[in-house]
């Protein structure tokens, strides 16, 4: 039942991301083909998770989970049902507690793919916010699980915070090579930040490529 819901959800999401928005994808060969794996991205918009979700084939939809703030997406019964069974969200408590990463860790234990936003929240458009330690803790618990970084250019403009209809825009997506994050408290945030800076530079350079050609 859940699997059917998730596949249907994947189809609906694709209508939005492929027809309403549309995207160009670079580095598709770096995307994990099976779990366990973690996919991380910069976060500016609710569209981010939907776009990442639609990068994977529909048959994989039931095995993809999206880490989401427990207080935001899991408040109220209808919300909770839709979040867990249709969208495939796993709650992460932002207030701490005994094991805030428990549900996310369970996803990796089951050998599935986890989508995670290291910033933990949608920041200002095109600005990378503070890197939260969640990913580092997961990396320490699952040292053998590869992390695939994805840079998203455009969703923050299409559907910024506080709006509910996405403006149709083409999204540029750049997938980087999988890596294993540092578990060091000091090194980790800088590592993630440098990685996304270079993906961002690649994306923008790709758009401007060979300007002296037959523009």
């Amino acid at each position: 039942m859940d699997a059917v819901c998730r596949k249907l959800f994947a189809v609906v999401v694709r209508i939005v991301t492929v027809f309403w928005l549309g995207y160009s994808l670079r580095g598709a060969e770096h995307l994990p083909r099976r779990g366990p794996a973690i996919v991380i991205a910069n976060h500016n918009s609710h569209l981010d998770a939907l776009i990442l979700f639609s990068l994977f084939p529909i048959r994989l939809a039931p095995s993809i989970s999206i880490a989401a703030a427990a207080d935001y997406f899991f408040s109220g019964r209808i919300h909770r049902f839709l979040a867990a069974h249709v969208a495939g969200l796993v709650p992460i408590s932002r207030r701490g507690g005994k094991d805030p990463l428990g549900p996310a860790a369970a996803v990796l234990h089951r050998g599935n793919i986890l989508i995670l936003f290291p910033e933990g929240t949608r920041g200002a458009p095109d600005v990378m916010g503070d890197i939260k330690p969640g990913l580092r803790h997961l990396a320490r618990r699952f040292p053998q699980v590869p992390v695939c970084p994805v840079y998203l250019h455009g969703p923050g403009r299409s559907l910024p915070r506080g709006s509910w209809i996405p403006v149709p825009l083409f999204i540029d997506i750049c997938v980087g090579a999988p890596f294993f994050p540092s578990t060091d408290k000091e090194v980790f945030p800088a590592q993630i930040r440098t990685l996304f800076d270079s993906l961002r530079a690649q994306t923008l350079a790709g758009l401007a490529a060979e300007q002296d050609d037959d523009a």
Partner: protein
Amino acid sequence: MTLLPVTLALIGILIGVIWVLVRCLLPTASPSREEILTRIRTWGLIFLFLLPVLLAPSPWPYVLLGLMSFLAFKEFITLTPARRQDRWAFLWAYIAIPLQYLWAGMSWYGMFIIFIPVYLFLFLPSRMVLAGHPKGFLRATATLHWGLMTTVYSLSHMAYLLSLPDRAGPYGTVSGASLLFLLLFLTEINDVAQFVWGKALGRHAVLPLVSPRKTLEGLLGGIGSTAVAAALLGPLFSPLSPLRALLAGVLIGICGFLGDVVMSAVKRDVGVKDSGTLLPGHGGILDRLDSLTFTAPLFFHLIFYLYY
């Protein structure tokens, strides 16, 4: 009216034959082989898109052309910088696309011709001013409206050509679809001919800062080739006499070039090479439609003024 389907079938076969010839004759080691094949394949896809536009019953041609405008406008909006507070104006501008094609499908000429240049020209800045930010206001309204005028208003003249009633031509009845076919064929022939003449003989750049590969030789060769093609095909697909068709070909040659370099200047201004990645080997959809943004309204008004 069997001329149009027969011609389209011939073009389809021609694209297929060229693809097979390139595949078989060009050595596998040739560096440009894959690029040429990709380009031809994309031409094939464009051709397949145009078949229902030219042959399917209403409303499908209008729906498909509206979709094309949607993609072109989306590319334009993606390229140009925008202010966050103008989101709603953008959404309203998108709503104008189906309406503009509806007016074309209804043959409501008065509404079709003033909807974007007058009503939206006044409405969109009104919506933007309600956001209350004067900083960057002129740039934002001008960019949005320019995008609508080129990708929606100009291109929608293709749809209105389809709505024109049948007329007697020199060699039998011509329909709106055959007029649209003539416009598309001549515009694309002009693009290709300018490219080929430029590659073969190009020496003197026309606009080195805007588009360094556009040469005077390519431009003149393109206009000449298009004029000849127009004189031959014009009388078959439109009410134009051979001489008038020749002049129409010259018009399409010059305006196609202008549309092309104007869009190049826009891309250069915002700092991108291609407008997108929708058409493999060609760039974005705007890269293919740039000439049509100029030729479509001008060809339409030429025909409309002379015969309707």
